[in-house]
């Protein structure tokens, strides 16, 4: 009964909103387009984004503008969902912003580090301040990574970043790692008053994410960063669903990549390394995302009337925007449409 009270309304709303998601044909049609404006026009004339773009002159719209519009639309829809929840559930919905805000913070930090002007950042950074409640204006004022850290004072991110500020040590790598570690630490440490079943689902779901990202991290750390096993282990997320600490540690201490592949082949995550070497690097991210996408769908069916429908909606929304942006990138680099398709999450 409790479940029905909490979720009947929001799930109905989500079903209605999901109707607006792009169809398979939409992606296939957009891939054939030749310019950003063509894609924008397609979205305006043929999809539910027409409502959103109606007032906007798309004749010389840039990739960044379009991305900003799409992301703000996602924010608007996420904010809508908040009204359907009460108490700590509201807090949880807000915490879905953490991931996106951290992504934007990383982009911002990179351009600050490289001394770029803010106007030239290619990404719109629409999510800044959505979770931390820090005004984006004050973040944009930062001239160094240190400024950026101090301008985040008062947010939950601050305590993870402040150890970076003593002397010479604040650098980009550590900033990004600290934020990532902070993200998983925040979602682990919050004590939300939500139902027991939802807690169980969240544990499963977040554990799954942690597993995937841990494997990806260890693989990349070994291959590209040549970090010591101790450091690798220290940078892993300290929980998981299928992987135990012992397995994680063993992965970090694997002598070489071959040994690592063998270890992972025995888990359910073996699919990550199935194909030959070259494809691993380029498509790993996409493989992870597709796994997440289908896993969410499965969980969605398994636990009707639970928090997972909302999570599924938000992630699907993200993937849709990600796919649109992938298509725009493919257009920019003149990638043949067959190649471009291999980067999309929602269609194969």
């Amino acid at each position, binding site marked *: 009964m409790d479940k029905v009270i909490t979720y009947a309304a929001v799930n109905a709303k989500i079903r209605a909103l999901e109707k607006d998601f792009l169809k398979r044909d939409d992606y296939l049609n957009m891939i054939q387009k030749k310019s950003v404006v063509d894609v924008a026009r397609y979205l305006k004339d043929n999809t539910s984004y027409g409502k959103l773009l109606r007032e906007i002159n798309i004749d010389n719209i840039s990739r960044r503008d379009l991305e900003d519009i799409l992301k703000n639309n996602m924010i608007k829809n996420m904010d809508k969902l908040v009204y359907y929840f009460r108490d700590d559930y509201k807090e949880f919905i807000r915490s879905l912003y953490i991931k996106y805000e951290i992504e934007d913070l990383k982009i911002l930090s990179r351009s600050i580090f490289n001394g770029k002007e803010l106007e030239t950042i290619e990404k719109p950074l629409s999510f800044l301040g959505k979770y931390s409640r820090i005004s984006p204006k004050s973040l944009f004022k930062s001239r160094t990574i240190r400024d950026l850290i101090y301008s985040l004072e008062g947010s939950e991110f601050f305590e993870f970043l402040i150890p970076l500020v*003593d002397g010479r040590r604040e650098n980009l790598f*550590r900033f990004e790692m600290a934020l990532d570690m902070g993200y998983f630490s925040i979602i682990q440490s919050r004590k939300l008053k939500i139902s027991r079943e939802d807690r169980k689902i969240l544990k499963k779901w977040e554990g799954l994410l942690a597993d995937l990202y841990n494997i990806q991290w260890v693989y990349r750390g070994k291959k590209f960063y040549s970090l*010591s096993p*101790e*450091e690798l282990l*220290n940078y892993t997320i*300290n929980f998981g669903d299928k992987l135990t600490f012992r397995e994680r*540690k063993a992965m970090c201490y694997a002598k070489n990549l071959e040994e690592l592949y063998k270890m992972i082949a025995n888990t359910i995550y073996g699919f990550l390394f199935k194909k030959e070497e070259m494809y691993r690097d380029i498509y790993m991210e996409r493989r992870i995302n597709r796994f997440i996408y289908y896993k969410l769908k499965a969980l969605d069916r398994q636990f009707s009337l639970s928090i997972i429908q909302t999570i599924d909606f938000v992630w699907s929304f993200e993937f849709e925007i990600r796919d649109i942006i992938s298509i725009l990138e493919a257009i920019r680099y003149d990638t043949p449409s067959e190649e471009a398709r291999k980067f999309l999450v929602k269609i194969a």
Partner: protein
Amino acid sequence: MSVEKMKIVGVIGKKNLLSRVLRLVVLDGSLHTINALVRVNSSDFFLPPNEKNIVVLEELPFLKPCSSKKDFTKDEEVVKSLLSLFDIRPQIREEYLDQDYNYDDFMKQLSEIYDRVRLTADEIEEKMNSINKKREYINNLKYLSRFDFDIEQLTCIKHLAFRLIKISRENYDKLKKNYENIPAVVLKLAVESKYVIVVSITPVILEEILEKIFRSLNYTLLPLPVEFRGTAAKVIEELDSAIDKEEKVIESLKKSLEDYKVKYIIELKKGYSRLEIEKKIEELKSDMANGDKLFFMFGFVPVSNVTRLKSELEAQFGGDVIVLVDDVDKGGSNLHPPTKLSNMKLFKPFEILVKMYGTPAYYEKDPTIFFGLTYMLLFGAMFGDVGQGFILLFTGLILELVLKKGSLGGVLSRIGLSSTVFGFIYGSVFGSEKIIPPLIIRPMANINYILITGVVFGIALILGAYIYNIINSGIEKNVERGLFSRNGAAGLIFYLILLYTIFHVVVTHSSISPAFIYIMIGLLLLMVFKQPLANKLIHADKLYQKSPANYYIEEGFGVIETLLSIISNTLSFIRVGAFALNHVGLYIAFATMARMMTTSWGSLAILVLGNIIIIALEGLIVFIQALRLEYYELFTKYFRGDGIEYVPAKMEIISSTGKRISLFHKKSIFCNIGNIYLYNIINLKWGS
């Protein structure tokens, strides 16, 4: 009364006067600004071509919107830090504003003071920092205080590296589980909420590896002082005494700041007031227009304030500004004057409820009095009780005193009063009907009578609404709405005839004359053809505003809706009687429960609880139901509420003599005393 008449006031003057003129306007607080370009381009704008106006007329065709945006961030910083440094409560006082001054010069002066003060402030801050650093050392040393050795032995050893660090619990967990691979001795010293404090000792050659590992654990180094010797406890003592010394220095520095405060306090207070008004002025500039040398400003001013504003402007600026005062033109202008309601004290609080529906348009008749009167009657009739009404009245008065403007306290006290009056009529005190005799009627004893009275009362109100609508349409010269619509004259006659026939049939049981039926059908036809008829009468160029087919389909259904709504609107007022009964019924339920209690205390408790529930729950329901009757049954007939609210450019300012505020206070208290007085008279008279 009701909607206050407005005039359009224009001020034109040299640009360098703009800030000062605007300051005067804000202090005066009666100008509702409008966009100057819109005003200048409106058809009724006229400037007599004489010698005085010649420069103005020259500039008229070349006006541009005023676009310069001043940046106040620096000024704000100066004022804010000065206020916080000297701990001054920010207030906007009139005495600092009505002097003649130049803002920029003043700010320059203020920032000079700021620079001077800052030197001392910086020194204090430096000392504070040094104290904080020492406190941090002390804090860190405390972790080591249980070890009884010279800390210099740790910080200055040659081949081993020692450090005290803080890491999060989950990272400590990782460290512990992987201890066999860590090239150092690690010792846990303390656990503090989320963090673990550890010391590590490692050979210097391995320090770099260890640093990398710790870095990946996101550690914070806890620094230790190097220039001290002895055990941790002894070093702490030494640091403590050093802090004491520095605190004394700070004390004396603060004293010298105090001198600055005495010297400059007036200037600082001025600073805040002047900055705030300057920001407000900057806001207003968006509505101004600029010529080459002149600025143009226009706005609506209530008639009663025009002379004051004009004379103030002329007194201060003399011939340097031109003040234009124009009447509000009814037809030609595309500017809608704002509505400023002014009603008698008794009805003023109901303006909130009217505005909740919509602000009356400037030309519309203000419905507040009609609304207030009928609302009080409806509420009282549904919730008539001497005791409970008095409680509402009393609560309302308190709210009015405490929260002042904007609260519903005023409404509450007035409906409470009405409830009390009806309480005497029904003879009900806190639900009980045994204490006083009814003046007119007991609802429960005359159920049918009460219900019918409700409907009759409703009919009277609906007729009032018809008349209001006809008057409003008359003012607006809207023939269609006033004569032929279902809320206009045609609707009114139809309603009256319908009522008469029903009355005739029910009371005399005779059949109705066919003439009435024909008239009614004729009236319905008038309503159907209202638009073409009206347009014919006023000789409009088009008979229909949209396609005739659509129009007739809509109006065809309109007939059905008219018939339905006439019946439902009227019967809706049964609830007035029904709630009067319900009020008694609810009390009877509690009275019965009270009688079932075995102790007299118990039954008293039930009665008190019952009364609380009745006041809170039924009071709220009746409040809403009465509002519903007003909004849905009556407002839809005559009130459009598409006006613009009068929002003059002004600020909350504390006046120099405190005159304005005390006056307001006295008035409201007097009125409240008046209410209580009135209540006492009624109470004494009926009670005896």
